[in-house]
């Protein structure tokens, strides 16, 4: 069904640890993996799926490790990759960081975990919080304190154990929006998208029932409150704990939360301006008029960059960059870092900025312009000057984009709001939800000429 065996390899392809789940393949086949990878690398090729004879290797790389699943069947590839990433997550929860050392230092636990998270190629329990309840790093005497499988493992609520107790019950919510932007060299926005995420830190006793209310457009339409400011989420993804059928029926987000930190949901909004959004919502009720142009939020790119990069062969490169913040002046972007690509063979950098400071990063072949605090509605300039060697390097360089990093606290681009978080537990305690909003740069690229 999925993996016959899973290997963790070092960068040279040596097996650090492995687990043979199905016993239907020769474990030595993995020796072919690295040579194939090297050959592909020589051809400047790369694929997350490599084949040797009847063996298929699905791999991911994490730090200095390869996690490789081997199969000879028509495995569910999506499941395998998603499982490998989950394994990384579990190991990270256990060992803080997953790398060669941590595997060696904890090989007994690694074996135990590998035994528990997958059986005969079928992924089993992969929730690290639950695993930690019965796979611990201390040896156990069977008669005394040997753990039993927590009922949670097999329960419908497989992510939260019973009997959790806190003195003070609280929930912290972070609404984090990442802005992905792709701008062409001619300055038109090709793609602009918000990927939002609601993260929870749950400090609640017992088995609380939570209900989250957002200013979700579809929900407001159902309930007939169309006048309020709403957000139309294009696609929403939920944590295992959210009752998906319920959401599908009446847009209610109801769940029993996992304890501690978790990502409750993520959502996506396309904010590319040029897109004429004419999808017709057919309402069954004649009272509701058909809504032709829905309120796609047409967001200007939060930080707009104009750049001129002039290259005078054999002598110099001159760079002019103008950065403009296009959000309301009551918000401020923090830790703005604008990375401007330069040829790899430049020397003698000179900078001039109207604010902030510049750094030449030779290892990245880029100039980094840092602006600690960038209020809305402002415009700053930066100029850079580099020398070029008289002998031109023969290597062709790609035209790398300018990238921007920033974060804007207390602000969401989409305008999403948490209207309420209802917490109900049978013991009837009072619990307080805390909400924090932040917007940050995601994949924010502006192509250069």
């Amino acid at each position, binding site marked *: *069904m999925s993996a016959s065996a899973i290997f963790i390899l070092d960068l040279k392809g*040596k097996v*650090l640890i492995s687990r*043979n789940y*199905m*016993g239907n393949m020769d474990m030595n086949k993995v020796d072919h993996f690295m040579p194939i990878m090297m050959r*592909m690398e020589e051809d*400047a090729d*790369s694929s997350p*799926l490599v084949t040797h004879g009847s063996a*298929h290797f699905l791999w991911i790389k994490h730090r200095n490790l390869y996690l490789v699943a081997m199969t*000879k*069947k*028509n495995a*569910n*590839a*999506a*499941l395998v*990759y*998603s*499982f*490998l*990433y989950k394994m990384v997550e579990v190991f990270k929860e256990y060992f803080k960081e997953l790398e060669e050392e941590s595997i*060696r*230092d*904890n*090989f*007994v*636990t690694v*074996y135990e975990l590998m035994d528990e998270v997958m*059986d005969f190629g*079928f*992924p*089993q329990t*992969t929730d690290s919080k639950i695993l930690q309840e019965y796979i611990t790093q201390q*040896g*156990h005497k*069977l008669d005394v304190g*040997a*753990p*039993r*499988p927590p009922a949670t493992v*097999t*329960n*419908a609520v*497989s992510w939260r154990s019973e009997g959790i107790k806190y003195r003070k019950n609280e929930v912290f919510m972070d609404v984090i929006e990442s802005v992905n932007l792709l701008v*062409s060299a001619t300055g038109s926005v090709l*793609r602009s998208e918000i990927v939002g995420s609601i993260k929870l830190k749950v400090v609640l006793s017992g088995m609380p029932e939570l209900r989250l209310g957002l200013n979700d457009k579809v929900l407001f339409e159902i309930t007939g409150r169309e006048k309020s400011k709403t957000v139309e989420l294009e*696609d929403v*993804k*939920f944590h*295992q704990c959210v009752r*998906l*059928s319920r*959401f*599908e029926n009446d847009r209610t987000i109801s769940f029993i939360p996992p304890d501690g930190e978790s990502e409750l949901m993520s959502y996506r909004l396309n904010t590319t301006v040029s*897109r004429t959004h004419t999808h017709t919502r057919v309402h069954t009720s004649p009272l509701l008029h058909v809504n032709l142009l829905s309120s796609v939020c047409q967001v200007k790119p939060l930080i707009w960059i104009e750049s001129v990069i002039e290259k005078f062969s054999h002598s110099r490169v001159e760079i002019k960059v103008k950065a403009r913040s296009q959000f309301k002046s009551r918000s401020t972007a923090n830790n703005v870092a604008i990375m401007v690509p330069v040829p790899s063979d430049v020397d003698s950098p000179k900078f001039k900025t109207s604010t902030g400071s510049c750094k030449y990063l030779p290892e990245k072949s880029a100039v980094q312009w840092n602006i600690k605090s960038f209020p809305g509605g402002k415009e700053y300039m930066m100029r850079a000057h580099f020398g070029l060697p008289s002998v031109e390097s023969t290597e062709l*360089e*790609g035209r790398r*984009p300018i990238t921007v990093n920033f974060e804007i606290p207390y602000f969401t681009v989409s305008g999403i709001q948490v209207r309420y978080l209802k917490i109900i537990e049978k013991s009837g305690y009072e619990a307080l939800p805390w909400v924090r909003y932040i917007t940050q740069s995601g994949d924010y690229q502006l192509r250069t000429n």
Partner: protein
Amino acid sequence: MEWANQLCENRQFGSKMTDSKYFTTTKKGEIFELKAELNSDKKEKKKEAVKKVIASMTVGKDVSALFPDVVNCMQTDNLELKKLVYLYLMNYAKSQPDMAIMAVNTFVKDCEDANPLIRALAVRTMGCIRVDKITEYLCEPLRKCLKDEDPYVRKTAAVCVAKLHDINAQLVEDQGFLDTLKDLISDSNPMVVANAVAALSEIAESHPNSNLLDLNPQSINKLLTALNECTEWGQIFILDCLANYTPRDDRESQSICERVTPRLSHANSAVVLSAVKVLMKFMEMLPKDLDYYSTLLKKLAPPLVTLLSAEPELQYVALRNINLIVQKRPEILKHEMKVFFVKYNDPIYVKLEKLDIMIRLASQANIAQVLAELKEYATEVDVDFVRKAVRAIGRCAIKVEQSAERCVSTLLDLIQTKVNYVVQEAIVVIKDIFRKYPNKYESVIATLCENLDSLDEPEARAAMIWIVGEYAERIDNADELLESFLEGFHDESTQVQLQLLTAIVKLFLKKPTETQELVQQVLSLATQDSDNPDLRDRGYIYWRLLSTDPVAAKEVVLAEKPLISEETDLIEPTLLEELICHIGTLASVYHKPPSAFVEGSRGVMHKRLPARTGSGESTESPDVGTAAGGSAPEAAPSIIPSQGDLLGDLLNLDMAPPTTSGPPPPTTGMQMGGMDLLGGGLDSLVGISHSVDPYLGGDIGGSPAMGAGFGAAPAVMPASLNAPVGGGLGDLFDLGGVGMPMGAYIPPKIVWLPAMKAKGLEISGTFARRAGVIQMELILTNKAMSVMTDFAIQFNRNSFGLAPAGPLQVLTPLGPNQTIEVSLPLSTVGPVMKMDPLNNLQVAVKNNIDVFYFSCQYPISMLFVEDGKMERQVFLATWKDIPNDNESQFQIKDCHLNSDAASSKLQGSNIFTIAKRTVEGQDMLYMSIKLSNGIWVLAELRVQAGNPNYTISLKCRAPEVSQCVFQCYEAVLKN
């Protein structure tokens, strides 16, 4: 081991707290030491020793010698130690089967431990020890564990059944474990249900006929309920299992879809993809005019787009699947072009896939943006990506006519960059643009010619030569240009040689006076100095043509070429359907059916999409007589295949871009060479013997050397299309009219009307189709005493409107005991009435004595018309367009012909083979038949070497004829 040693050095000064210290004992005599430690009385020491053993095992050291000592540690009350010993057992039991028995008792005991964790651990491990002797002992514990009160144990035991089945299937069946497993589908615990489903699916996969999963509305309902409560993985097991179910009607289909759609909001991409699979499959059954259908279409787009924000490997899987989905249902993502724009930091495999999808989504509405992007990509530095981008521009030109001009000028700009590989790619695609839009862009030829010298890749050289040959009359110095290539003729690749040969012949035909010497030179190079049979053969053909009939040569070589059309490398519809059923799996990533890469899956049924059912579509139900001819051609886009594409138009393959959409593009030098024969000259040669006959082209290309090229063709398609055994020139001559085509099948004459029933007149006869004329061949015998005269014949209305085309020609009176043979030509324009059986014909014969009636059945093959050879593209589109429930499958038993013999035999009866592909020794012949009333019948005949039983699938808009058509196949093949 190295790292263990290193580590030990590094670690000696550092912390001793971590497990890495166990790796420090790799010194001489350690086995001995370990043995002592394992047998120590001190528990702590024992445990440490086992850890050291496991550490050694981990670094690949053979510690099997310690087997008995480690097994002795098994009976421990320390859980961690127990797990380690179990781990050791799993690794070494196979090499020490006799000693493994020692462990059995402990296993059995542990299966009854008070702690469910231990019970599960024992049953889980036991299943992993693949030693027959142990397996026997596993049965009883397993039986108990399957009924254990703790769900953790039950869910582990469920998987164990699959393990045991893998080792000893018979045992599992005998012990009745399968039934217990089926019962677990109704377990109260969702995880147990999920694992039971997973185990059953796994077992069912290796035993496709076992009907294990026995899915019915009740069990489906249970699964759907469990779906809401399982872990994410369990949800995937269940969704994948659901995807194997075929709902009874559209209503059931819709209700399942409704319950599956919420899964599209799951955070796990694999859950989303499995849900997409179920929806894509069941959607097939929904009537398109249903509101729900369009709602569902809309719901699919956002989650597919979101998958592109996943980790790169998952993005890749998603993109490969989206590639399938946009081919199956282009409407889902048609507005989402921009999400496939390439980002600078995308991995190369993601970039290439995005590019592919961009071209598929390109349309007049978005072409400007697409082109701007492609131009951007074409100036990147990554060679593969740039090449693909340049080709993509050419594909856009061909696909969106309005954009052709802009594409051409973009390509010219790119040629100006003088970047070598960009120029070469551009020239290759410009050649296709010339073919698509003749007499429009030839003005750019001059620019192309400037770059002649920089071309060093065979494909680009061949393309350029083709252009020079094709437009020789417009290029003043065409002879010089071609001559310059001729100097190094023998160093060129076959592809270039062939192209050069054709180009020079073209040139000669256009400017005979100046180029005689040149053409002689190339003909002699090709025929006398070359070892390449294809080159020689082509050379000889030209030579003979030129020397015997220059006018014919002109008609052949300079014939008008068929236009090439827009869509490239679409996946063949049956394969596409199969792949849609495998969304999310390796098959969907490779774009190959599982049977192509999974060992031992040959007998496994190919998955198909369910057929549309229900009331909504009833108007579409086929009707004999009216559904004639099919409106398919305009319905589906026509296709330029990539090499190896099943139903490709072979004619333009010589130059078609090798658009490899398979993950690792295996380009072989051979394949282009092989295809090239079909190009330039010969395609037009073919053009006169048959209007357009791609099949012939394929045959020419199919000589042995070519076969290899085909075989190694891209991974995209398992098919090597029609590499025929007969091969080579034989077929060429055959179609050219030299060989004798085999005649149509004519059944032996039988008595239709016995003398007893007709006052002494006996009529026997048969039907035949001779030279396109249907004939009823009759033998009339007078067994009466008196002379018979005044014969006449009449038909009742019948299914295909058969009627005598003239009077029954019995001119002289028929005396007693006299016999006369008569042929009655038939027409098909008579009145139509559906008969049962379809091919039943009621006949009235009159003479001076009386009128007699009889009925007879004609072989439907006599209605197969000569122009029943469908074009590949049309075939493909039609096959796709005919609903699946119109398909019927038959077996033809005891037929000992090979596929080629069968094919030519069938051709005699106007059953035309359009393409052939071979998958794992199984030949699949794709055939078309056209009935006299315009009904098309498409067939797929599977012939397995050494197996006398053929399988035939027939698809027709009027499925009623299938049975009759099948009978004809049988009759033709067996006679």
